[in-house]
């Protein structure tokens, strides 16, 4: 008898308490109603959550909000793979659209060119070094090699080899943080399909560049004559025409000889930088 009473009392009490609290919560929900954006929450779950800002929004949550509002396209996320983007698109019921995948590249061969360095003993940071009279190098357009971009890269895609930065394409997602961090503007976002690049960033006259850099583009236009439309000449600087849709390939590179050897594919560039760094170290 005693136990039964206690049991019944316990059950009744718990039920009553639960019902009372449930009612209070129900009332509160009514009073403090918030218009929640289910679509945005859903999109946020599908996004990678790297918060890299590569889409141009402040983190994944902001991008998800823009997606839900129809202001952005899922393909704007540089981190997601094609399948992930397709999944988000179908979930949101929008057309994924075509966005060219981008990849960063450091357009400089100052290591090969043996650009003269002044004695710089300040803060080991590119932005700081660049403020001191335009940096320790004589070339004011090339890579400073102090690694500010590498520290800023959320994906660890940038490596400093010797005194120059190189981008590992398999890791790069094209978020553009390095481009923003570089005080010299030597890092460019280019289509990921482009294999070959002209590794120089200085628009100075060839003769001026030659005074301090052996590897700078001299603007001889050989490349442009050999493959019209695939290169653009900017002042005294030849660059791959990244708007063309078709980029220089092995055939183009083999069809002429660049006098400074500035037209290289990404892998050879990294290999050359490694070899040079080794050589300098052994010296």
């Amino acid at each position, binding site marked *: 008898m*005693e136990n039964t009473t*206690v049991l019944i009392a316990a059950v009744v*009490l*718990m039920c009553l*308490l639960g019902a009372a609290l449930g009612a209070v919560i129900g009332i*509160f929900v009514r009073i403090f*109603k*918030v218009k929640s954006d289910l679509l945005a929450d859903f999109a946020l779950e599908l996004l990678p959550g790297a918060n890299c800002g590569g889409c141009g929004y402040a983190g994944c949550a902001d991008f998800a909000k823009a997606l839900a509002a129809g202001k952005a396209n899922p393909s704007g996320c540089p981190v997601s793979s094609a399948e992930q983007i397709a999944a988000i698109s179908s979930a949101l019921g929008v057309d994924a659209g075509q966005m060219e995948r981008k990849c960063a590249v450091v357009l400089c061969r100052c290591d090969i060119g043996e650009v003269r360095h002044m004695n710089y003993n300040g803060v080991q940071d590119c932005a700081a070094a660049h403020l001191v009279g335009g940096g320790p190098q004589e070339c004011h357009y090339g890579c400073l090699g102090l690694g500010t971009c590498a520290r800023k890269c959320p994906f660890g895609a940038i490596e400093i080899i010797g005194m120059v930065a190189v981008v590992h394409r398999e890791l790069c997602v094209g978020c553009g943080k390095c481009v923003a961090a570089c005080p010299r503007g030597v890092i460019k976002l280019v289509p990921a399909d482009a294999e070959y690049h002209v590794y120089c960033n200085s628009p100075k006259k060839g003769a001026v560049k030659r005074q301090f850099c052996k590897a700078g583009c001299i603007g001889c236009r050989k490349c442009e004559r050999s493959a019209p439309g695939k290169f653009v000449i900017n002042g005294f600087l030849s660059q791959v025409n990244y708007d063309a849709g078709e980029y220089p390939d092995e055939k183009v590179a083999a069809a002429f000889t660049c006098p400074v050897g500035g037209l290289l594919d990404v892998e050879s560039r990294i290999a050359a930088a490694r070899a040079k760094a080794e050589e300098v170290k052994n010296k």
Partner: protein
Amino acid sequence: MKYLELTIGAVLVNNFVLSRFLGICPFLGVSKRLDTALGMGSAVTVVMALASCITSLIANYLLQFSICGHEINLGFLRVLMFILVIAALVQLLEIMLQKLSPVLYRALGIYLPLITTNCAVLGAATINAESARNVFDSTLFGAFSGVGFALALVLFSSLREKLELAAPPKAFEGTPLALVTAGILAMAFSGFAGLC
């Protein structure tokens, strides 16, 4: 004097985080920024005060009563009921915060619903019940325990904001250094022992 003992004791001497070692999860989780720490601290204080009040009402008047001459003691339901009350309170707080301060709501993130399982809140309620305090004393104790929690959180987050600028050895970066700091802070608080 009794109230002084109750309040000072809850804030400094028997600080929930630094001497009872309860509620460590949000203590480590929400202490990276001073402003979110303040938000978390005040949220926990509110929940602890309310929870202590309601749970002591329950403990004093609901769990022991006589019906038809039978003395019924439902003491075994204590933890269950306390958790129910705390969970409901946290839900209420969450609903209100979402409306009133969306910024703080987003900053607290997962740690807000986790106040439910914050053992400091349950701890305060249980301590109240075990010391058989009346409703007023319990509420006071709950509120000041919350203040103690907030104090610890604010102190710790200020320290961590400074630590963020330091360059410790790789092995100490992040959580290890935070735990070491928490330990030192706890040692400092042990100096209050015997105050009252």
